């Protein structure tokens, strides 16, 4: 098969434990260097935490696999310093079109609002994402990335975990205060701990092909129900980097995976779809089935499960890798506060609570999509086709057409870390919401809210005139910087201005912050290190902020 991508081979290095035989203890060990494990290790190492990252392989993902990376994921990747590389290489898109037989019935726009830095979605082969993350990981002095290191045994304890690791040089032992299991759907760590997953297996098979071709399909997601070139089934098309198109063909449960993977068979399917004689080449072909299931809890003592190791969804909606990267974003700041003694160990239970809720939302939405795409009974198929027939003309039916509800962040409205509203606010930025972006000017330079938030607790204080803040108020704001954990107060103002006492000022030049956050003179938002709202008020009160900060860092 043709190759647009050269797979890197990362060198295996003898681990220090094998040199001197001494078992070392590390604050954090991450198992699995896929996108999710890499994101976790980078997040922690950027903050100076010593992390060992173990992976049983020595290269990146084979084939395009994850494909779609959503706006929220890109915003997290920006904080890991790889967002720009991914967006530059990937194909950005916002519009998805759905076809029934010969006709378009429906289209959606993931990001109808202007003034956001990142697009609704990008398509990028997973190997590029992993390559960029590995490049970033290797820049970090406290991140020890070990290829061809496979965990073979595990001993969990009250204050840490002991691991036995197999390498080309033989076995060694290492100990970790905390273990992050990011080792995928068939997680070795989960199996070694005899932990169960519960959920549903879907009886269907899908063929996926990465196809290199010169074509002029627009930068959109195209989905067909029952198209003339693949009767009775569905087809999904994504344009990726390097003129590699990703095509998913539904095959049905009866299909023989080995037979379907034969190049002549795949080529004929693609030829029928293209309907002409243009040249193309197959780069990767695979057949997959899927399940929707999760672990009961994602925390087991000192072991924290993230990504596919903790939960799996059907692929319709791009809610797999995207939710895994959001897991790490939720987990890592909590783990850092616990490691630094700034939060109780129970803060990590809220990682499990919040991300179990998000996993349930992802499982619910991707299961609904799967049920619409692959109806399980004749009556279900009749309703599906009736919806599609009505959708051409009637808006209510278009809203029911479900070819995938694409990955968006969960609203963590039930979280114990939130402080409930005590005043009325319009809009969606409720306690628990992930921040909406907004264009800003900071120190005279154009920027974005999401580039200037995250990593630590912040309070965004909106005032009409930054220079009018009095000295007493400014001193109170500065004192919050000495709280545990530290809280940075930032002034957001419609006018460029200088605040007393060296407080940073974000100028809301386009007015989008005021609009999206329903901000008035005096409105304060408390923002978590993962850019979720923890609380909001109509006036500044340092004591109230301290109470909410304590709650948001696990002091209930």
């Amino acid at each position, binding site marked *: 098969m043709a190759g647009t991508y050269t797979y890197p081979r990362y060198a295996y290095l003898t681990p220090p434990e094998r040199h001197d035989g001494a078992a070392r203890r590390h604050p954090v060990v991450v198992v699995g260097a896929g996108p999710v494990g890499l994101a976790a290790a980078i997040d922690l190492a950027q903050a100076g935490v010593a992390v060992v990252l173990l992976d049983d392989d020595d290269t990146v993902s084979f084939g395009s696999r994850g494909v779609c990376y959503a706006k929220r994921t890109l915003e997290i990747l920006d904080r890991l310093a790889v967002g720009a590389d991914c967006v530059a290489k990937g194909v950005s898109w916002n519009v998805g079109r759905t076809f029934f037989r010969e006709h378009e019935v429906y289209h959606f726009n993931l990001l109808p609002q202007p003034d956001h830095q990142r697009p609704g979605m990008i398509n990028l082969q997973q190997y590029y994402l992993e390559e960029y993350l590995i490049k970033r990981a290797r820049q970090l002095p406290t991140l020890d990335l070990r290829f061809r290191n496979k965990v073979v045994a595990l001993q969990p304890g009250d204050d840490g975990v002991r691991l036995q690791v197999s390498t080309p040089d033989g076995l060694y032992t290492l100990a970790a205060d905390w273990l992050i299991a990011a080792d995928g759907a068939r997680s070795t760590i989960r199996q070694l701990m005899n932990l169960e997953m519960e959920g549903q297996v879907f009886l269907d098979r899908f063929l996926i092909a990465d196809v290199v071709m010169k074509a002029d399909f627009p930068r959109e997601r195209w989905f067909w129900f029952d198209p003339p070139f693949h009767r009775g089934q569905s087809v999904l098309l994504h344009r990726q980097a390097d003129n590699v198109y990703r095509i998913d063909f539904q095959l049905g449960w009866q299909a023989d995976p080995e037979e379907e993977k034969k190049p002549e068979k795949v080529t004929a399917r693609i030829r029928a779809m293209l309907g002409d004689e243009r040249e193309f080449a197959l780069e990767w072909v695979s057949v997959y089935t899927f399940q929707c299931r999760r672990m009961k809890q994602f925390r087991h003592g000192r072991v924290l499960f993230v990504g596919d190791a903790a939960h799996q969804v059907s692929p319709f909606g791009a809610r797999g890798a995207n939710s895994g990267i959001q897991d790490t974003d939720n987990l890592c700041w909590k783990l850092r506060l616990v490691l630094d003694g700034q939060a109780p160990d129970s803060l990590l239970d809220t990682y499990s609570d919040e991300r179990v809720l998000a996993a349930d939302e992802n499982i619910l939405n991707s299961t609904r999509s799967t049920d*619409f795409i692959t109806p399980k*009974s004749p*009556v279900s198929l009749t309703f599906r086709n009736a*919806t599609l027939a*009505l959708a051409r003309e009637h*808006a209510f039916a*278009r*809203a*029911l057409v479900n070819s995938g509800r694409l990955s968006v962040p969960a609203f963590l409205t039930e979280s114990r870390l939130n402080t409930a509203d005590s005043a009325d606010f319009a809009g*969606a930025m409720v306690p628990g919401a992930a921040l909406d972006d907004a264009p800003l000017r900071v120190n005279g330079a154009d920027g974005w809210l999401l580039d200037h938030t995250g990593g630590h607790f912040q309070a965004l204080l909106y005032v009409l005139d930054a220079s009018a803040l009095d000295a007493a108020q400014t001193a109170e704001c500065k004192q919050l910087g000495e709280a545990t954990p530290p809280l940075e107060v930032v002034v957001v103002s419609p006018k460029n201005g200088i605040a007393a006492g060296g407080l940073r000022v974000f100028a809301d030049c386009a007015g989008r912050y005021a609009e999206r956050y329903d901000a008035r003179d005096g409105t304060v938002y408390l923002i978590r290190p993962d850019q979720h709202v923890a609380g909001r008020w109509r006036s500044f009160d340092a004591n109230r902020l301290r109470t909410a900060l304590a709650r948001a860092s696990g002091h209930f």
Partner: protein
Amino acid sequence: MPLKLEANFFEPGQRYWRAYTPGDDFYEALIETHRGLSDEQSALLNAKLILLLANHIGDISVLREAMAIARQDV
């Protein structure tokens, strides 16, 4: 009142974060109602459901409009 053809699903007391959620809630409930039934049983269920909803709507001019749209291209 003419037949509503814009999206119209909601549930009292629910706040929705995504526009597709109320419609998806309804669709799931509809398919779930048929779970485990034979084709014949499903057809009977559908007939009963239409009669119940038609009585709830009451306005026969609205029902005629819906019946005419449903009949198109069948």
